[in-house]
């Protein structure tokens, strides 16, 4: 019995370690941009075109460019459920500032990744944001909608680096399209084209966002 308890403790310890590795702490490194601005969706709805490492609007502490828009009848859980076959690991949380109710508010999401962090491996990673109360915006033009950011994580447990927002945007566009959702890759200009290397953060975002209709 004592041995079994020890095994249980061991299993619990391994699970706790795995959870700690899988959900890494929020990024405190951040990056900067000269493109930060608000985007208007009509009816007073607005977002910033980057997410942030903290809950402060600061062009010197952004994380990734907004590159996805799910519209018509989308909500956060629906998108994550559609993509969970490929994107199945929780990521570290970042922050988005948005306005759906006449005042600005923060939403936080860790998003989903395609693999667990490792020394040499990489994974695609997206985050989606919407007003916290309903997990979706609403207006008559876009219906129920939300937005997201994308990137790739590399070697997170060794020489961590992050890049390729376009690659993950394209991957999600392909996956949504393959599942029958009407998808328009790089459909709308979101004013966030950025190509530079800052610390371990390499931007290669073409400035266009992909729209996906979710009935």
């Amino acid at each position, binding site marked *: 019995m004592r041995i079994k308890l020890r095994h249980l403790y061991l299993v619990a310890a391994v699970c706790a370690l795995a959870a*700690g*590795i899988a959900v*890494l*702490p*929020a990024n*405190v*490194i951040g*990056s*900067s*941009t000269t493109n930060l*601005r*608000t*985007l*208007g969706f*009509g*009816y*007073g*709805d*607005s977002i910033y075109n980057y997410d942030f490492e903290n809950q402060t609007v600061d062009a010197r502490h952004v*994380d990734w460019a907004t590159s996805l828009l799910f*519209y*018509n009848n989308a909500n956060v859980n629906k998108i994550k459920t559609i993509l969970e076959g490929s994107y199945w690991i929780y990521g*570290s949380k970042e922050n988005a500032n948005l306005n*759906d*109710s006449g005042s600005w508010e923060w939403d936080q999401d860790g998003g989903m990744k395609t693999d667990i*962090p490792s*020394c*040499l*491996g*990489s994974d695609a990673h997206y985050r989606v944001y919407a007003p916290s*109360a*309903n997990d*979706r915006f609403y207006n008559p*033009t*876009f219906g129920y909608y939300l937005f997201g950011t994308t990137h790739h994580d*590399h*070697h*997170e*447990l*060794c*020489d*961590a680096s992050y890049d390729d927002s376009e690659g993950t945007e394209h991957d999600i566009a392909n996956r949504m399209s393959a599942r029958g959702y*009407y998808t328009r890759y790089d*459909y*709308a*200009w979101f*004013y966030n084209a950025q*190509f*530079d*290397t*800052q*610390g*371990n*953060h390499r931007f290669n975002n*073409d*400035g*266009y*966002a992909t*729209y996906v*209709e979710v009935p």
Partner: protein
Amino acid sequence: MFGRISALSRKKLVLLTAWLTAIAGIAAILAIATSGAAPSQPLGAQNGAPVRVPPASAGHADPPDPGAAAAAVAPRGPPAASPADAAATRAVLGGDATLARILQGIPYRVTSISPWTDAAGDGVLGTAVDIQLDSPLTATTELPGVRFDPDGITYRQLTIPVHVTAATTFRLLVDVDARQVVSAMPPDATLSPTPDTHGLYRAPGDAHGS
């Protein structure tokens, strides 16, 4: 006569009431369906640059993109390093013993040299360089890498034991001041760990995701 008119008016009144009730009911249903998500400002109000509205239905032209003019003048690739930094970088590449050991004499060409700054975008750390090898590299070797501190400005250097299989490109980070290649990584798909690689895993509390 008054009785007849009254009867007709009563019928019209009942009909009108029924219509008004139906309209009110539909309005109530719509209000409930969109409760908590109703637009809070009048039609057309905008906070920020207007974005393109969703695609039209089949057979109709897509709506125009209000950002098209801005998109036309936006950058389409990384900025080139200054001529001085590019020249210094090429000099570093030519004399770097670590890079020479990794490439084992395989010729290569530089495909891009761009600035490498700190996370704030202020301080220049060196250059980011992409190279293309003339033939694939397969080797068991040690690659230099960098692990950034939480400030995003300073970093520590580390050496990662790996198997490299058929790599034809490398991404390099060059510290021009120190005249050193501080990171040399081929695509992840070409990398696999050696028995020593696991020793480089850091404690979860030391990591910073993005």
